[in-house]
């Protein structure tokens, strides 16, 4: 118990003195790092533009209203493309993520020394590279269009889905696997009847969760030419058609809210 002697009185304190000093030291170091980084950013910033920003914001807001509602008619097809990019990309990622996850999980991997590091590397590299960067690469390879978007979303999601899935596989109840093995089941049967039923709820949850994220991410892939509503956004911004931009942003907002509602409903139904 951390107690400080104050004359005759013993006063309760939350922490021991050494620990308190260590925490203060950590805070001091943190603040110093932050101040240093902030100074570097502020050196690169033209503060005149920043002080001017409120006026610019008002100007931009004035140009964005009223939204040009009739432009919405041209947005249904890009929105459908966006939905397809997110959904098909998620499906593709799940198909690839399942074997990768089984190879990465410590208890199901064929070889801890050879296969597991490869699977973990696939997971990390797919996760570290943003879908926009994947799209940038894929547009160079297979040309602009929806397919590049689907592949970009797919490649980006493999790592995410496989990581969550292999953590779920590692947390399964080994007793059930043992019980199935004891009936004389072969390797594949153990997998199908001992492991898969246990990770099924996690799998469904992960797919819905990633689909929801992918809807958000696929709205911007068009900025680098990979299809979806981002193409219209990019075109409208570069032609300074701000009334169209506001319609597009509202359409994105509505799509994301609907997708969040759908995924909340489905998750609720599963769990």
């Amino acid at each position, binding site marked *: 118990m951390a107690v400080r002697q104050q004359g005759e009185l013993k006063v309760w304190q939350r922490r021991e003195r050494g620990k308190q000093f260590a925490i203060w030291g950590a805070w001091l170091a*943190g603040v110093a*790092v*932050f101040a240093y*980084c*902030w100074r*570097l*950013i*502020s050196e*690169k*910033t*033209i503060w005149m*533009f*920043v002080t001017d*920003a409120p006026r*610019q*914001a008002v100007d*931009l807001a004035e140009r964005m209203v009223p939204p040009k509602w009739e432009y919405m008619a041209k947005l249904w097809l890009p929105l*459908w*493309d966006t939905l*397809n990019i997110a*959904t*098909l990309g998620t499906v593709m990622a799940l198909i690839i993520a399942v074997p990768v996850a089984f190879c990465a999980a410590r208890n199901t991997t064929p070889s801890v020394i050879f296969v597991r590091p490869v699977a973990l590397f696939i997971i*990390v*590299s797919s*996760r*570290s*590279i*943003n879908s*926009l*960067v994947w799209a*940038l*690469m894929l547009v*160079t*390879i*297979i*040309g602009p*269009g*929806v*397919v590049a978007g689907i592949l970009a979303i797919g490649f980006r999601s493999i790592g995410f889905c496989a990581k969550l899935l292999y953590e779920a596989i590692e947390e399964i109840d080994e007793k059930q696997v043992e019980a199935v093995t004891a009936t004389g089941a072969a390797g594949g049967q153990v997998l199908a*009847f001992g492991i898969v039923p246990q990770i*099924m709820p996690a799998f469904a949850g992960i797919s819905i969760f990633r689909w929801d994220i992918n809807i*958000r*991410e696929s*709205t*911007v892939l068009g*900025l*680098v030419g990979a299809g979806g509503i981002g193409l219209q*956004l990019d075109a409208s*911004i570069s032609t300074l058609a701000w009334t169209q931009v506001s319609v597009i*942003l509202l359409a*994105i*907002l509505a799509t*994301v*809210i609907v997708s969040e509602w759908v995924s909340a409903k489905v998750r609720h139904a599963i769990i």
Partner: protein
Amino acid sequence: MNGAPVDRHWRRPPFIANPLLRWSLFVGAGVYLALAFGTIDVDWPRIADGVPRGQRFIASFFPPDFTSRAGEIFEGIYESLWMTVTSTVVGIALSIPVGLGAARNLSPRVVYLACRAIVAVSRTFPEVILAIFFVKLFGFGPFAGFLALSLATVGFYGKLLAEDIEDMDPVQAEAVRATGASWWQWLVYAVLPQVLPRMIGLGLYRFDINFRESAVVGIVGGGGIGATLLTAFDRYEFDSAAAILLIIIGIVMAVEYTSGFVRKWVQ
């Protein structure tokens, strides 16, 4: 025992128990896939063309060239790292009041709704769209990227903080309140210890996300390694691009290991 032979064959129970729902989901998925594939105009010759092109592309990634653009790469990574540090700190600092306000068990209805609205809006738009607007308003450079990442952090962290506070153990909170603690004391001694370990972990996770996102805000002019990456792609210097991607992967892995270590230390 002379009744009709009973089918004793065991069948695995289906994942979705209701047969009507199960079949309508299957049919719905089939119809959707048919529609989706029907409407995507796939330029097959272009994709077939892309196979040799892709091989050349991948070949030109190797070996990654760390040296010829070392100056620009170093500067970009460095800038990304400051942007990550400042935006994570500022974003989390801003998200604490928002998160407290968005917790149903802590705040009055009006504050709750207002804070939830802030969270919803900043979560809806991807960092890149936020960055486009901040670049318009504040000019090119890391400041715009910093603002975009901070705002995105507020949405992410505020939401998770609010959910964590809503899930806390009310018994402990009541016990502290029963000692006559003021609102601040109650917050520090009852709420904070319950949410802190998870929140430190999530803060590190957000640091990791912000670093990855700082690679893309540069594509729209928000500073950081993204600008260097885009330039490398535009100049067809794929070996330099490969070097940048490898550095990003390396840093993300390093952050992940560190955060695992810190999380263990906190708990």
